């Protein structure tokens, strides 16, 4: 059924459809509507699972990870400060090989205080051992959340689904909400190990030796490598039932492109419009949308970018002291590319500032005509755009 709903509502719909056993959550702007919607349904007896209204995000993750170890389906959602507070538990949830699914509404981290879209919160959790998927719109947020449960429970690795503050969390779009029996058929009841078996008692997470620690990390790393196949397969399975898929990356007009613009999340939608206009003017520009960030889809990216003469990465996050985080990752993925593409990073939309088609066209013009590619990112701010206009 098509519904006109926000991204937050779309995620909540997806969670309800997946019949979670334990949902533990805590309010934080702009994630709160997910929590409220699930609590509404819980109060009406429509959620099915147990809702634990915890006193912090840290305890939300503690509750979810221990419930997952007990063998049930778990979900939580957070943003920004809440995600940062969870950081320790994120390592713990991944290291314990749980199947927790979490929606993260990307929001700027304090200080200074702000409530705008910015991806640095989830990207700061890059090394926690979670899968990370970035969504472009409400529909993708709903579909990816449903996919996330299947992925997490097959791999026994937790999955983070990202939607941007305001642009997705609070903007309403027509969104196809699948029928419950369709989802029931696609996502079978949870069947993950029950770690606390009375007939075979063991002590989970006992202290390990250095070599055992290394071996556990290796196992998790191998599982993450395998995740590339699982994410791709689950996406295809989803398409065969629901008619929608997204891939690890998505490409538009890249085959003959002199410049490939790499984007994530909502900047992609705007870039689609800008690129259609640029193509009509004869500018050979392509678009590569990165959806999966952990594990990093190196092969899928290299298939697109190995022989691209120029690559521009435009993104709404920064690792202070270096550059945009996606740009660094893409550079490292392409270090052995035979075509040695020139790569330029652009910072746009930081703090939720507007990324419009004019800005994207400026980036494309700059990257396609640039003689020297610099190692530092280019801040595409108002001054740059106005300077160019003169």
């Amino acid at each position, binding site marked *: 059924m098509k519904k006109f709903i926000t991204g937050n509502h779309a995620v909540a719909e997806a969670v309800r459809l997946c019949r979670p056993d334990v949902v533990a959550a805590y309010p934080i702007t702009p994630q709160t509507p997910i929590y409220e919607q699930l609590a509404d349904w819980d109060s009406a007896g429509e959620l099915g699972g147990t809702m*634990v*209204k915890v006193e912090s995000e840290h305890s939300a993750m503690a509750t979810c990870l221990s419930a997952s170890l007990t063998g049930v389906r778990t979900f939580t959602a957070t943003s920004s400060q809440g995600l940062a507070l969870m950081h320790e538990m994120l390592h713990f949830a991944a290291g314990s090989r749980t199947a927790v699914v979490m929606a993260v509404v990307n929001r700027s981290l304090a200080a200074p205080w702000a409530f705008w879209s910015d991806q640095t919160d989830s990207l700061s959790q890059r090394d926690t051992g979670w899968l990370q998927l970035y969504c472009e719109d409400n529909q993708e947020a709903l579909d990816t959340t449903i996919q996330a449960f299947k992925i997490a429970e097959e791999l026994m690795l937790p999955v983070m689904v990202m939607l941007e503050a305001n642009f997705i969390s609070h903007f309403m779009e027509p969104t196809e909400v699948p029928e419950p029996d369709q989802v029931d058929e696609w996502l079978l009841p949870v069947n993950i190990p029950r770690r606390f078996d009375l007939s075979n008692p063991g002590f989970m997470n006992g202290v*390990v030796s250095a070599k055992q620690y290394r071996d556990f990390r290796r196992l998790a790393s191998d599982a993450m490598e395998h995740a590339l196949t699982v994410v791709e397969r689950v996406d295809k399975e989803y398409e065969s039932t629901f008619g929608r898929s997204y891939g690890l990356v998505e490409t538009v007009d890249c085959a003959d492109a002199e410049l490939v613009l790499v984007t994530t999340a909502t900047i992609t939608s705007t870039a689609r419009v800008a690129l259609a206009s640029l193509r009509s003017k004869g500018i050979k520009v392509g678009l590569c949308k990165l959806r999966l960030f952990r594990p990093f889809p190196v092969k899928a990216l290299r298939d697109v970018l190995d022989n691209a003469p120029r690559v521009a990465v435009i993104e709404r996050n920064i690792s202070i002291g270096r550059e945009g985080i996606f740009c660094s990752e893409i550079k490292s993925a392409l270090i052995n590319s035979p075509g040695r593409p020139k790569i330029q990073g652009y910072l746009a939309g930081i703090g939720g500032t507007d990324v419009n088609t004019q800005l994207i066209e400026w980036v494309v013009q700059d990257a396609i005509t640039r003689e020297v590619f610099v190692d530092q990112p280019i801040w595409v701010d108002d001054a740059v755009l106005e300077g160019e206009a003169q």
Partner: protein
Amino acid sequence: MNNNNTIDVLDAGHAACPGCGYAIGMKTVLKALGSKAVVVVVPSCAAIIAGPFPNTSLGVPSFHSAFEIAAPTAAGISAALKRQGISDVTVLAFAGDGGTFDIGLQALSGAADRNEDFIYVCLDNEAYMNTGVQVSSSTPMYSWTGTSPNGNTKNKKQIMEIMAAHRIPYAATASIAFPEDLMAKVEKAKTMRGTRFIHLLAPCNTGWKIAPDEAPLVSRLSVESNIFPLYEIFDGLRYEINYQPKRLPVENYLAVQGRFSHILPDQIKAVQTETDRAWAELCAREARTRQLYGDTPVAIDCESGTKEI
């Protein structure tokens, strides 16, 4: 003690120091708990006693969770078990005083506020012993630790009052020197639902600077001198004192422990005064319980002052 679960749930070969108060406490609690249980331990000596991977001294399924999340871990397991239709398995968390009074207090408060269904046993050895004796908010006044080298400068935090303020169904103090009382409290807690809290004083021989065979003796002195009275609080309101102490002078308790070796006569007097005040307060609460709720707990002689035995 009439106990149907006579298996030993803490095996020999555990990794505790000789005569460890924690090990005695865990063994006693687990014996009363029986085998239909899931146990949570968090970083503390309990996690070491439980054994290094892949070994375990615990005879029940157990989980070494993170330091500050004993309560929400137990809550998560408990909620998940119920979702699986399992209602006859008790979830019990062991946490130290650091994990309870300090870093885990917020999470414990949240779980207690929601009245999550588990038994929480705080194994209190009055400092961060697993990291080598550092002061915690459970450390008593004047006690030496590695981070209070001249003696602790504040009174022990009153965790029982904090838990009572949450109006949880059951909170009790217990001592390794009174194993039958401890086991009876665990068994009583098992028959209840919601958050049940047991504050178990469990000396660390190393940190308290006592001999390896002295943990039970010192524990007994803590009760007999009213430093650590044995009582229960029902629904956070109704107090019941469980044991008539001998009211020994606190000096008897302090003098046998190296951690108080530097204590001055005036300081001993101050400890005595505070101990008398706290005992009178506890007795008054029990009297008030009788008055308000008509309960008739075991009559306790609440005369103040000390007497020599």
